[in-house]
């Protein structure tokens, strides 16, 4: 039986010395708390099903060090690796895959130029191309063309795609965009609700469930996980195929193994 995937996410940035660190890591017992490769190894040992590296610096300088991080990780960690952040060209993808990554996520570049998804999928295969969709709830339904979703409290809203790390609204309907992304050849969607990201309130269930039900490609739910119950909610109520989390793992509150044990007890198929 296909298992639900638990995916720790590492937001990688540059420190003053130009070295890579993972944002927000507070493991006290790691030799170098912020070293992405050390952390990747740790999560692999805990039973992570995949790892996502997001290059939040996404600078030219940062790209080179990111490639180095991927190479060093891929030499020791034999599970799927996904890399995102500032991917704009076919050449960017080629470099990242060559370094040992299996998939890339594209986000802003896809919104600005949707054909980029098709171009990349034709060259590297759909399975390599994960489209990352960041969205935000918008309670003002300003057009009959909006996909209206009923929120937890019964009020209607539509979900708007946002780019540049959530700073810029686009006016694009997230459900329609997700369907288009699937048509364009994306193999998977990583869905982040900016209303939940960093809140510890759990996944945004209404949008997660809508996309999971309406699309044929897998949905990775992201944003808001504060405990194992939230993962359970993402799989059962949100019908997600995979759950991504950062902080709960980085702070050492829960290991990947803890989350999987919890899910297994509750009857969710996981790889243990």
């Amino acid at each position, binding site marked *: 039986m*296909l*298992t639900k*995937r638990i995916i720790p996410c590492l937001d990688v940035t540059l420190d003053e010395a130009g070295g890579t660190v993972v944002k927000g890591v507070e493991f006290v017992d790691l030799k170098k708390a912020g070293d992405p490769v050390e952390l990747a190894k740790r999560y*692999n040992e805990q039973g992570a099903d995949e790892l996502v590296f997001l290059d939040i610096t996404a600078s030219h300088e940062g790209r080179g060090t990111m490639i180095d991080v991927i190479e060093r990780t891929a030499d020791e960690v034999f*599970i799927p690796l996904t890399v995102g952040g500032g991917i704009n060209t076919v050449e960017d993808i080629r470099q990242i895959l060559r370094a040992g990554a299996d998939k890339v996520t594209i986000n802003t570049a896809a919104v600005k130029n949707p054909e980029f998804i098709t171009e990349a999928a034709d060259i590297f295969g759909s*399975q390599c191309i994960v489209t990352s969709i960041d969205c935000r709830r918008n309670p003002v339904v300003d057009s009959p063309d909006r996909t209206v979703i009923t929120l937890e409290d019964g009020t209607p809203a539509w979900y708007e795609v946002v780019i540049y790390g959530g700073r810029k609204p686009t006016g694009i309907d997230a459900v329609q965009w997700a369907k288009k992304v699937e048509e364009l050849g994306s193999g998977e969607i990583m869905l982040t609700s900016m209303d939940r990201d960093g809140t510890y309130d759990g996944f945004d269930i209404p949008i997660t469930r809508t996309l999971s039900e309406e699309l044929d490609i897998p949905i990775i739910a992201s944003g808001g996980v504060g405990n194992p119950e939230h993962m359970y909610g993402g799989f059962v109520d949100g019908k997600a195929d995979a759950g991504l989390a950062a902080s709960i793992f980085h702070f050492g509150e829960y290991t990947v193994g803890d989350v999987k044990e919890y899910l297994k007890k509750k009857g969710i198929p996981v790889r243990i």
Partner: protein
Amino acid sequence: MKKIVIIDYGLGNLRSVRKGLEHAGAEVVISKDPADVRDADGVILPGVGAFSDAMKNIVPFLDVIDEYVTSGRPMLGICLGQQLLMAHSEEGQKTTGLDLVSGHVVRFPHTGLKVPHMGWNSLTIEQDHPFFKNIPDGTFVYFVHSFYVDTDPAHTLASCEYGIRFAASVVNEAGNVIGTQFHPEKSGDMGLQMLRNFVNMC
């Protein structure tokens, strides 16, 4: 040291296969030169991407692969590499494959499940073979594919359930050509054990 040649006929991540085989103690050559296959102890047919593109790119290797396989030395096709071992595929235009293992490639039927089949799923080992030595039944491995291999039980080394039961691993009559629909190089310690088993077969 065993010399394993990874045939480089396309794009994507070959680094993990290489590292996995190196972990198993092999000398690994990633090659675009068919001549490298002649003195190989083992050959890997990796693969991501589209069947027809891969068949086009592999044309320069066709003769040398035939010769190599006839010699009885081991070859492992991974993911699309397993599909290429078949007679033909229905992906895109109907395309002819290497026809080294009996069977053909078809798309997952609509069963209400997501396609691609992506993630960790468990294996049912159907036959004894050195490739699955020390691999327990039920082992989880990593899959990502939209097409699967339709073959008969005699050529199925391991199967997997995703709406239907399909061949997760195949073998030819002689036992030297094997395929895995999953990625051993992305399947953690158990995947590394399979790569070690492959190196030991060489």
